[in-house]
């Protein structure tokens, strides 16, 4: 992380102290709808309530697939805040969502009311959604629930990731005392296909240091892409699925070599679980996690969406 940003974050931390006399409770909500028409995918519904919005769609890869930047000017959640993002991608429409800044969950106020964020994505038949946000930074002593719910209809596809930073490793700020409940689920035609529930609280605190848990590494990332067509058990593997399996094996061999040589500084790996490719990062640098996930996204996007990777411009600035 660059020093200017570090300074800003340090400043934020000292100014965002818990002051119960000035409780600002923001319930912000943004609801988006995307629809495919003759001129491509349009943002046909864009309604916000509170400081959470999209300015305008960008079309760096043509009319079919807009890139949307989700803006949240307050930059973070304090006690009692609730942020809700609902996105509906209609039949055959496509969209890529990202965020220009890291999400923050600040230190809780004395009342410890929940800091709650809910992302709810509905992807209709043959539609696609990419959810590629920057990391969420959880400040010490925060109390938060973060939920991302993806509902896919038949033929719909999804790529997404979430990177969570427990504290700010660059500032030596440790948030292992935060209370975090993070839920990430994907359903396909109403049937659960991916469920991840991370809990860190007084009862499960040990998992932060445990070898089987987080090995004292503050940045935890999870990556999900799919569904990839499964091979029928009665026929030979398709070329695409063979290539994908080989790519996963090569990537894992490379990651394992690093782990065994460098004593497990950064842990990362991939697996195909059912029809979904699931990847993970556990380390101490959000930027490194994001770059790794971006590389995985670029490798899988051609097969899943039939498109080359087109990184949102904001990533390059």
């Amino acid at each position: 992380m660059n020093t200017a940003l570090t300074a800003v974050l340090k400043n934020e931390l000292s100014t965002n102290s818990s002051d119960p006399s000035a409780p600002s409770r923001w319930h912000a909500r943004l609801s988006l709808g995307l629809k495919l028409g003759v001129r491509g995918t349009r943002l046909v519904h864009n309604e916000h309530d509170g400081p959470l919005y999209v300015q305008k769609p960008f079309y760096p890869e043509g009319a079919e697939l807009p890139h949307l930047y989700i803006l949240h000017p307050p930059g973070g959640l304090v006690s009692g805040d609730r942020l809700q993002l609902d996105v509906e991608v209609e039949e055959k429409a496509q969209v890529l969502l990202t965020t220009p800044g890291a999400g923050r969950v600040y230190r809780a106020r004395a009342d410890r009311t929940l800091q709650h964020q809910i992302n709810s994505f509905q992807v209709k038949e043959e539609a696609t959604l990419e959810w590629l946000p920057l990391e969420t930074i959880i400040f010490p002593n925060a109390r938060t629930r973060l939920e991302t719910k993806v509902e896919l209809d038949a033929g719909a596809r999804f790529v997404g990731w979430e990177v969570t930073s427990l504290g700010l490793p660059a500032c030596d700020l440790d948030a292992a005392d935060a209370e975090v409940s993070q839920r990430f689920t994907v359903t396909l035609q109403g049937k659960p296909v991916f469920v991840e529930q991370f809990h860190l609280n007084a009862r499960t605190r040990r998992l932060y240091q445990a070898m089987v848990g987080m090995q004292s590494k503050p940045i935890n990332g999870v990556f999900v892409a799919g569904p990839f067509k499964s091979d029928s058990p009665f026929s030979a593997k398709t070329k695409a699925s063979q290539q994908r399996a080989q790519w996963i094996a090569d990537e894992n061999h490379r990651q394992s070599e690093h782990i065994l040589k460098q004593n497990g500084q950064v842990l990362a790996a991939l697996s195909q679980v059912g029809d979904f490719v699931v990847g993970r990062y556990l380390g101490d640098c959000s930027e490194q996690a994001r770059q790794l996930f971006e590389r995985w996204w670029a490798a899988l996007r051609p097969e899943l969406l039939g498109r080359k990777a087109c990184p949102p411009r904001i990533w390059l600035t």
Partner: protein
Amino acid sequence: MAITTTDTGLLRLLQLSSVSLPVGGYAFSQGLEYAIEAGWVDSISSAEAWLELQMHDALARVDLPILLRSYQACSSQQGNRSEQVYYWNQMALACRETRELRLTDTAMGEALMRLLPSLGVSIPLSEHSKDTPEDVSFVTAFACVAHQWQVEQDAALLGYAWSWLENQVAAATKLIPLGQTQAQQLLGALQQYVPETIETAKALADDELGASLPALAISSMLHETQYTRLFRS
């Protein structure tokens, strides 16, 4: 926790939780083999820490609460029993973080399903899998058989936890390696956590189901592509 059971229920429970049940649980290390390769587990005490946390943060949050719900679905008077069991079966599979962990569950589930007709047992999952042959989780299959054999619900949870523990300790014994006496010490140390694990499982709400142990998942993923290994992946 106190468990009451009949003699028949207890005998059936022993049969269902025994390592002699031919479902092949001994073939999987569930991430442990890579953890040993990486040096994360290298002794009886590090094995205990590795497994104990899994009992509290994975077994108590995925396997046991889903076992409980599948068992209850079997005795449900409302709605379509096989649909309900099937839903929990899907949930069990969706909670598996890697291909290895999912294969452990489905390979054992499939083996148990294959055995059932010869034992004269028919469970709601058998009906469902006729129309749409899909993967069966060992957790749901175990629950249905336990229900059919009139094993008490709490006893079924205990039996499942025991068989998971026994498989994992056997894997640790082979891999670390540990002596037979150390293996018994490890079993003794870990079984103390079983009642607490079951209590946690029973207190969980539907929307709290699920787990995440990041290093376990990574270890299991890397086992899938480990060059030399004893266990299946």
